[in-house]
């Protein structure tokens, strides 16, 4: 093979390798973008069921991390997504099955519910404020002033859930609330309890990774 042809071949091979490398490089960033889940519309309005667990599924890349999941009303169908799609300017109804034990709030200001339409129901009973040491997590959308503390399950219970998925028979607190979605756009939500065990100030790891303790609200 002549010198020039050899160089052309080598250049072509390197070019393909470089393009493949770039593709893989960009792909490594994109594969970790969590998917999104749409809230279901039922006869009684728009509903979404979520669950918070002390540790993600054993097959998850981070099986030790706390996490939110999207579930159904019987807590049997579990999806690991934290982007929720809801219609604009509508009253939506969230129900959260809270399976984790308490950590306590960093800022006790978040012990009071805010931004909901009507009261928040904790195991069926309405309450406006909880003990600041009680929450295991919160669900908050700062851009619209929504903040709901989620009390922890009884730490002494015998049937605490270890890893997702958790059945309804495991110890949990059911929190449900309604709020009016804002205008179309992308909003973010997060937990305000420093619940990332093993990370300094409890705010690393799952708190800083979309798909665990924070996500987006896609209002369409």
């Amino acid at each position, binding site marked *: 093979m002549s010198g020039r042809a050899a160089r052309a071949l080598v250049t072509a091979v390197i070019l393909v390798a470089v393009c493949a490398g770039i593709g893989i*490089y960009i792909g490594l960033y994109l594969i970790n973008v969590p998917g999104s889940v749409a809230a279901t519309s039922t006869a009684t309005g728009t509903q979404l069921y979520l669950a918070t667990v002390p540790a993600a599924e054993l097959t998850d890349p*981070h099986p030790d*991390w706390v996490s939110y999941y999207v579930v159904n009303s019987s807590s049997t169908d579990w999806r690991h997504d934290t982007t929720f799609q809801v219609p604009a300017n509508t009253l939506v109804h969230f129900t959260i099955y809270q399976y984790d034990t308490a950590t306590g709030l960093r800022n006790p200001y978040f012990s009071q519910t805010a931004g909901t339409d009507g009261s928040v129901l904790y195991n069926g009973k309405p309450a406006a404020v909880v003990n600041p040491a009680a929450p295991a997590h919160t669900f908050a959308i700062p851009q619209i002033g929504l903040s709901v503390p989620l009390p922890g399950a009884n730490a002494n219970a015998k049937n605490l859930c270890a890893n997702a998925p958790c059945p309804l028979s495991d110890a949990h607190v059911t929190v449900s609330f309604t709020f009016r979605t804002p205008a179309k*756009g992308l909003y973010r939500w997060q937990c305000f309890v420093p619940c990332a065990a093993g990370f300094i100030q409890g705010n690393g*790891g799952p708190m800083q990774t979309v798909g665990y303790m924070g996500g*987006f609200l896609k209002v369409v």
Partner: protein
Amino acid sequence: MSTIAVTPGAPRTGWRQLLGFNMLTGIILGIGGWFIGYSAIGPHIHGVGVAYYATESGQNDIGIMLGYFLGVVGFLVGLGFANYPVQRMLGAAPSLAEKESEEQGLFRYFSLSTDHKVVGKQYMIGIGLFFFVAGLNAMLIRTELLQPNVHVFGANQYLTLVGLHGAMMMGVMTSGILGPFANWLLPIMIGSRRMAFPRIESFTFWLLMAGSVILLTTIFFGGFQTGWTGYQPLGDQGTAGYDAYIGFFACVGIAMTLFGFNIIATIVTMRAPGMTWSRLPIFAWGSFATATLMLLAAPMLIAALLMATMDRTVQTAFYVPGQGGSSYLFENLFWFFGHPEVYILALPGFGVVMELIVVFARKPLWGYRLGIAGMLGVAFLSFFVWQHHLFVSGMNADLRPFYMLSTELISVPTGFVFLCVMGTLWRGRIRFTVPMLFCLAWVFNFLWGGISGVFLSDVPSDVTTHGSFFVMAHFHYTIMGGLVFAFFAAIYYWVPKMYGFNLNERLGKIHFWVMFISFNSTFAPLFALGLLGMPRRVVTYATNLQGLNDWVSVSAYVLGASMLVFLFNVVWSLGFKREPAPVNPWHSKSIEWQLPTPVPVHDFDRFPVFDPDPYPYGVEQVPAGAPATAPAGGAAA
């Protein structure tokens, strides 16, 4: 002066060339070292606290740091850096016997080489590679910022992109000009055959490569969300990706310290007779000024990161408030390094531009001593200004006027450099070659970078602009508009001598004009974005700023495309066309151009005799092409 023992080994053929101490062995031993540290030793380091945190968080920081450390050690041992120290400890005589032979072709570039010209070319390719990776990150960042409410990347992936772009550019481009060009040119310019410590020279290169690879592994560990400044305690909160950041800057810090040390030792001790301090080319002075900063500032970074490592691994509290630590400690330690660091980036640009405009205006450097004073003044003052990064942080308010003054004062020696450039052009005979175009663009870009720096140094003005895109525009104008433009000027200027082939001039001019226009189109609006209230490192922004952001993103894509033009030029001209370059295409009177192309392994046969005048232009009118009987730059053969 000892003679150099050049003992070429028996040339190997075929696959046997891959055996022995080279990059392949280094990679294999490096991977082995990683696994020993991370998988074998790491999980067995038990302290009660450590085990608990590792289980809860699912990451073993000790294992990762050990893995990186042993990986780098393995890599360097595999390359052969341990051979000479071990031999000497066993009693062998000093020698420079490794790999100075002219055989072995391409394999020289994948191993430990004591030929400074090989190390220079290794730097050029290695730095070029990571420069383009970091540039790719910038394209991805601008893609994310096209729309405030549509996210292409996840929020934490975006922050990793931002951090990777910044860290990789800062770590790699500190040696961006000195690595390829000081290594290649400095010994020749001072009449020596080598740097003072050739193995250290090669060591700094390979350590930088190892560090850059470590930085890229952050993607596999979740990335880091602190940006290149790595503030604590946010970094402490990070997942294992932050350990890659620490590993990278540890390697960069050590490489920088040793590199600066090598340059200083070379210039101080290895100058040929007749090469006095007042006769040094201005590029050598620029390298010297930069090297003092590298030597003195880089260790601070290593210290700051060592403490961060201890916070993350063995639960100390250097930066944890409430436990005796302080977030201010990291900020101050980091910026004590960080501010000289940005002058490490800027000073080589000063040296290159002043060196090159002499050739293309065909006049001696105007104000040679003033230029030296300017560069040394900048270097000295750069240690006294770091708190201007902390004006609104709650630092002691009494100190702010002092740092405002010191930062404003730095513009005076910088102004000297501008005066030298402008004076050199006065009544010159300016030729608009591609290197000269880049140098002239440097003047324009650094003007805006410098003036915006004056605004930032003024505390009342800084209150609005700190932490906003105004700062981003300022440092991109100085670092990219300054350093990177000088980097390309140096490439177009010295490639004919380093590689023996011409780069296509037309493609070079296209590269220049597209880059210059798109660069300004990309970064000038960032001043406005910052002034309109957009903070740095944000994944979303006010919707009324979308128009400006889209303009910037499109311009950035064009800027990226200009780099592709450059890459095409390099591959085409050096790979295919291979038009042999004349010995002295720019008719420069500097010594490197009086040597033949390619420059022989040992550079000079005899000590060069230097004209006492470093820039003898206009002293005797030399017609084009006529070889001077006694080249003013020194006899080379």
